[in-house]
């Protein structure tokens, strides 16, 4: 390795190429040079000047953090001249700190640390007039009397997270940190990611309520429970409770977090936590109405674990024996660990004897995965989302990563700032739109037409990668003849994007050195979701934009472990590792492995199970960590099914909307209360470590499942997640090479990793596809429209969406103090002109009605929403959006079309009080 020989304080040192004087000094342990504005991983700014050193031959002192050793350079960090200025800088900064001398806001002030190390006594200069405090944000306090203008927070907000809220306004000694136009932080566009708090060295930006002053008893390294990014984090624990969360270095997040991961952890300690098993009272009949948790005693009574487990298992056995195994079904948890998911599907298959096991992937990327398996033989992503920094062109369609995958979005914004091109295809203008090179605000539901027209242009202008098509694909001719009918001229009026833009976008994508496609629910949650995904796959294949860094197909996986849960076979058509249940070879293998005969029929999916309950075919269900009473489409229908079951066992951490329908409720463990493996969207298997104990008599999910299994006649004796993981490795060849020890050491291992010692493949399909003939298949798609188009009676399009502060059904985040404080009320996003026409002031109540249900909520004007469109998230039980949505399914993926149905909206209404 090439090194540079230079001299520091009279000693010869070797610096690595790209290493600054400061970094070389640190690495060699030679000199302890002060530094304040320097933060590892951030661009150096060299403004504090506390790190100055003498470089022979230079007139003035040099900042060692941004100067790089040259061959033969002579540096002195301890000369009188250098030390004089290092100390004077510290003294000048200290002069403006509060009178206490040390930071009143954090025990870890880096300024205090260096002041002590260099022996700075009471400053000899007058103090500035101190800026006022700002405690307007529920999660963070702004104490600018300890600000040293180091700009670490500015770099955090503008260069790392690129939320662009923080600026350095005015100049000279009046220069100050501002949010937006110098507004209180709580009123600004701040998204609460806390990167600035993490970056601040002096306590000027801190977690609210002086949390930073408490000293934790221990720190536990774990993973975030929210989204598929899978940020690594550190829990600070004090007296058995979570105190705070800090970002940790991980391959998917690089120390970054979002507001949920950083500040949304205290739901774990909410008084609503279930602490004892509950059994439904005999005098409490089931209705379709939701139960108010405070009224739980009207419906449930406490029970011992013995009684509850026996009752639960007996109920299942009875139905299994009297009505057949397929009269049972289960919904598993995509937030739970791989170990929990593996056990549950094993219980359902070997204990119930059915393949009626599914989870919320059905409502999410089922169509995408289906298309991927069909086209390229593998449902997981081809490249990690961090590859956006390697790509020349980033194509994002039907996704709002700023809302749902915030940290992944930061990498996209970083790439744009570095000059890469972003093509954003979304009917709604979001915070990401400003960064997009091409912002295609198209008509909802017209994805196939739009994508086919792009492919039409690529073929017409000879921009295909002919070689790639020949070597790695089949059926191109079918695709070619299909898209011949989709010229930009024809498609422009359909999708609402000008012809020339379609052409430019097509060219930009096709001619890029590397282009990556990321997508979300806008693509998948349609009755033509599989078709939508087929088009994306075709676009990627025909241009050869796959199988290399910065290319590929990345359906952004929503839940923190939906990838893992699917990998574990918690789905009706596949065993672990996507082995089809109907294939006799697979069946035999698992029958041998599990020593039980298995059901040869594919099971029912989520919405099909609901229908089967209505038809009487399914009579008993085990719902573990799922909340279908909020997440399923057409809630009147879904809740109706829940209320009809003979036997419903719900395992959860709260008395959720679903639990209200149960016969038995098991109090389970929340994420920080368990250890296990979790697989993020990048196929990185990451280790979550238990930081605190479950409250009261709540138990580990794996233990509960095992207890139920035993009572169903299965002789399980797992002693914990590690042992379960060992079995998982045997059942999933793509993870066979990952050991628990390696996870403990490295925290994160990518699969495929088939043999121990394999590094793990981040990018797949480099040399062909896991299909029979190693080739990928083009599957053409014709433009069709959604199932329920707007008409005179129901003229608006209702589109479910997500929001930054709340997660999905709200069971966690509405009980997280900070998150619910930021967004406490349900809102529907409406175009301001539509609102005006309705005669509704922003913030007033509106009523939305579909053929299936009716809700009232508050109107939020959104200049990014097109006329005639409405966007609403689905986590507020007082205004459950899924009461409105349709359960019509994509025929291949069986995913409901929650992204498009017809509604009418009127002024007025009475948004109900929240239930809970």
């Amino acid at each position, binding site marked *: 390795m090439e090194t540079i020989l230079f001299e520091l304080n009279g000693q010869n040192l070797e610096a690595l190429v790209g290493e600054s004087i400061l970094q070389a000094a640190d690495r060699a342990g030679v000199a302890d040079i002060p530094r304040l504005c320097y933060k590892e991983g951030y661009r150096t700014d*060299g*403004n*504090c*000047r*506390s790190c*100055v050193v003498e470089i022979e031959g230079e007139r*003035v*002192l040099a900042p060692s953090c*941004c100067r790089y050793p040259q061959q033969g350079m002579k540096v002195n960090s301890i000369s009188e*001249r250098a030390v*004089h*200025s290092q100390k*004077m*800088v510290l003294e*000048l*900064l200290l*002069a*403006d700190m509060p009178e206490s001398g040390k930071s009143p806001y954090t025990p870890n002030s880096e300024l205090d640390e260096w002041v002590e190390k260099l022996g700075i006594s009471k400053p*000899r*200069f*007058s103090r*500035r007039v101190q800026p006022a405090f700002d405690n307007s944000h529920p999660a963070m306090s702004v104490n600018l009397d300890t600000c*040293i*203008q180091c700009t670490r927070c500015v770099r955090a907000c*503008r260069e790392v997270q690129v939320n*662009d*809220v*923080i*600026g*350095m*306004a*005015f*100049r*000279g*000694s*009046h*220069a100050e940190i*501002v*949010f*937006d*136009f*110098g507004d209180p932080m709580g*009123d*600004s*566009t*701040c998204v609460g990611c806390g990167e600035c708090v993490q970056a601040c060295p002096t306590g000027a930006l801190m977690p609210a309520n002086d949390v930073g002053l408490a000293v934790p008893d221990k720190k536990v390294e774990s993973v975030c429970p929210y989204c598929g990014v899978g940020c690594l984090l550190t829990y600070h624990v004090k007296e058995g409770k979570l105190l705070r969360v800090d970002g940790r270095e991980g391959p998917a997040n690089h120390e970054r977090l979002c507001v949920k991961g950083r500040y949304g952890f205290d739901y774990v300690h909410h008084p609503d936590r279930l602490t004892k098993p509950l059994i439904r009272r005999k005098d409490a009949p089931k209705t379709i109405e939701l139960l108010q948790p405070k009224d739980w005693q009207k419906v449930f009574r406490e029970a011992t674990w013995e009684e509850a487990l026996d009752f639960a298992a007996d109920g299942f056995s009875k139905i299994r024996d009297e009505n057949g195994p397929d009269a049972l079904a289960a919904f598993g948890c995509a937030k739970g660990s791989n170990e929990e998911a593996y056990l549950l599907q094993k219980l359902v298959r070997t204990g119930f004897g059915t393949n009626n096991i599914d989870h919320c992937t059905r409502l999410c990327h089922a169509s995408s995965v289906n298309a991927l398996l069909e086209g390229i033989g593998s449902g997981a992503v081809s490249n990690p989302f961090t590859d956006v920094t390697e790509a020349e062109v980033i194509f994002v369609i039907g996704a709002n990563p700023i809302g749902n995958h915030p940290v992944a979005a930061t990498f996209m914004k970083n790439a744009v700032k570095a000059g890469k091109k972003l093509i954003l295809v979304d009917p709604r203008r979001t915070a990401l739109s*400003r*960064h997009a090179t091409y912002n295609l605000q198209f008509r909802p539901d017209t994805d196939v037409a739009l994508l086919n027209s792009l492919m039409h242009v690529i073929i017409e202008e000879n921009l295909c990668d002919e070689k790639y098509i020949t070597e790695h694909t089949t059926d191109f001719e079918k695709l070619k003849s299909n898209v011949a009918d989709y010229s930009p001229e024809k498609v422009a009026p359909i999708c609402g994007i000008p012809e020339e833009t379609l052409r430019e976008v097509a060219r930009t994508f096709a001619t890029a050195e590397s282009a990556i496609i990321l997508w979300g629910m806008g693509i998948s949650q349609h009755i033509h979701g599989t078709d939508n995904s087929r088009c994306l796959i075709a676009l990627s294949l025909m241009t050869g934009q796959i199988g290399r860094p910065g290319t590929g197909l990345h359906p952004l996986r929503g839940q923190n472990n939906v990838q893992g849960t699917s990998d574990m076979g918690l789905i009706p058509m596949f065993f672990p590792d996507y082995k089809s249940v109907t294939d006799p070879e697979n069946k035999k293998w698992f029958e041998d492995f599990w020593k039980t005969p298995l059901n040869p029929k594919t099971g029912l999916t989520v919405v099909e199970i609901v229908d089967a309950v209505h038809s009487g075919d399914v009579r008993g269900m085990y719902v573990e960590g799922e909340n279908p009473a909020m997440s399923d489409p057409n809630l009147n229908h879904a809740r109706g099914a829940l209320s009809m079951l003979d036997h419903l066992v719900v395992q959860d951490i709260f008395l959720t909307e679903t639990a209200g329908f149960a016969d038995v409720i098991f109090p389970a463990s929340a994420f920080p209360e368990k250890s296990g493996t979790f697989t993020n969207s990048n196929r990185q298997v990451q280790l979550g470590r238990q930081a605190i104990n479950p409250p009261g008599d709540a138990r580990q999910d794996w233990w509960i499942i095992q207890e139920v299994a035993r009572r169903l006649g299965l002789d399980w004796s797992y002693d914990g997640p590690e042992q379960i993981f060992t079995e998982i490795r045997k059942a999933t060849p793509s993870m066979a090479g990952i050991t628990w020890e390696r996870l403990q050491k490295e925290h994160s291992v990518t699969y495929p990793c088939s043999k121990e010692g394999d590094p793990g493949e981040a990018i797949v399909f480099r040399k062909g596809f896991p299909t029979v003939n190693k080739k990928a298949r083009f599957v053409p798609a014709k433009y069709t429209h959604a199932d329920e188009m707007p008409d005179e009676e129901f003229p608006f399009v209702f589109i479910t969406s997500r929001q930054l502060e709340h997660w999905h059904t709200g069971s966690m985040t509405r009980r997280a103090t900070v998150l619910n404080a930021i967004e406490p*009320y349900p*809102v529907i996003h409406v175009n301001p002109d539509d609102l005006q026409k309705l005669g509704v*002031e*922003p*913030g*007033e109540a509106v009523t939305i009605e579909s053929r299936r249900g009716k809700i009232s909520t*508050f*109107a*939020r*004007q*959104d*200049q990014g929403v097109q006329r005639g469109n409405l966007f609403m998230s689905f986590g507020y039980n007082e205004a459950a959006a899924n009461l409105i949505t349709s359960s019509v399914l994509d025929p291949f993926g069986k995913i409901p079309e929650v992204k498009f149905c017809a509604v009418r909206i009127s002024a007025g209404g009475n948004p109900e009080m929240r239930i809970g």
Partner: protein
Amino acid sequence: MNKKKIGKQKGRLVDSEALLEVQKLMSDMPLRKDMLIEALHLIQDEFHYLSAKHLVALAHEMKLSHAEVYEVATFYHHFDVIKENDVPPPPLTVRICDSLTCEMYGAKDLTESLKHVLGEGVRIQPVPCVGRCQNAPVAVVGKNPLDLATIESVQNAVNKKEVCPDIPEYVGFSQYRGTGGYNLFQECNSGKRTAESVIDELKKSGLRGLGGAGFPAGSKWEIVKKFPGPRLMAVNIDEGEPGTFKDRFYLETDPHRFLEGSLIAAWAVGIDEIYIYLRDEYAAAYEILLREIKELQSAFQDILPQIYLRRGAGAYICGEESAMIESIEGKRGIPRLRPPYVAEVGLFERPTLEHNMETLHWIRDIVEKGAKSFSSHGRRGRKGLRAFSVSGRVQKPGVHLAPAGISMLELIDEYCGGMLNGHSFYGYFPGGASGGMLPASLGDLPLDFDTLQEHGTFIGSAAVIVFSDQDSARKLALNAMRFFEHESCGQCTPCRVGTAKAIPLMEQKTWNKSLLEELSQTMEDASICGLGQAAPNPLRCVMKYFPQEV
């Protein structure tokens, strides 16, 4: 339940009326990020301030965040950011210079008097040096500068709404061409001269950067030429050093000379675009340049590089070459850390040739008449000519073109008609506020690059301010420090905090000399740019040469 909060996303919404107004103003302007300051000027000029709703509309149009726009707008003192609950300023502002020479000539009293006399309808702002020191005190009514300002003259201009500058008589395009102007440029362009020969001549002449840094011009052309294209050029007319007005003088008398110099530089070095950065206080010069560049462009359509004229917005620091480049890029004027130097990574990351306007003004003469025509001048072994901006207690202040190496005493005697009656020579600033101060006893030092450093001063832009026994050295030093504190960009600790902490120390009757020296050492040693590095010069000079005052 706060309906307003529920009803919208966080942050300010775009107001449709404001958006239309901004779109109209920007109709001829590309929406690129680097046009931000130009866009802010359009809005400030039209509405007399920058309202929050216009800034939101602008951010929307330019795809910038609100903070990005706000932090730039608030950096520059010519912009008034008015938020929802702020009171907008009155449409007319009278700016009164409070820098060194104007303070000597009673700026403080003038300001106080005018506050009483002009009333509420007019805003009065003390401002730093506006580059008219030979006619101190100076008041600028709107954009109209009043030399030798009095209460009466200001009141008169205010009442008559005389807010536009008079455009002085100058050598226009036709006259310049008629007397041989642009012949040299055409010779170069047509191949009659080689770049090497021109650069050679420049090197022989010893021409050095006349903005103050003094880098040899010919060598600079060579250095930039070696870096791969495309290369850009930045012409620095942010003349802001208190006491300097030579650039304005040449702009308002013979503007095409520096333009031709720029074109020759662009040809010799291989430059695609020229950006001219003009301080916004020079409103007359702006009009002149707009006109003359247009004429130049129509006359020489196909052979000119692109020429862009950009306005400063009230920030002395933008006279620092890298801060100026940041400003041209539409950002806060924050100097960059070097290395890399702007020759290698400059404007828009390209290799950039940066020159003070006056340096370019001399190119034509040097090349046409030969290096010796310039280098043969000089006294005491020094070479070349300097355009000294002389102000203060002399009979004839003004721009005096004199040999390099001339002494202060000679300058006063031979060029300035001696000291004012009743004033005896006490001391002088050889190079503006940043060059420090020397006592009359050192009035025989050669004034040039390299000659004054050993005395703790430098010639800089050759802005010479002469003060007398009627003046106080410590008062002038304090004025200078207040100037630096006002103009510091705020980036680095030694300057941002150092200038602020020095002021109360300098206000004490008896100075804490050892503490001031400790502070000065760090400001000189550890500041990022020349402002912070030079800020301690006046105070150190007072301690050294006028110790009896402190």
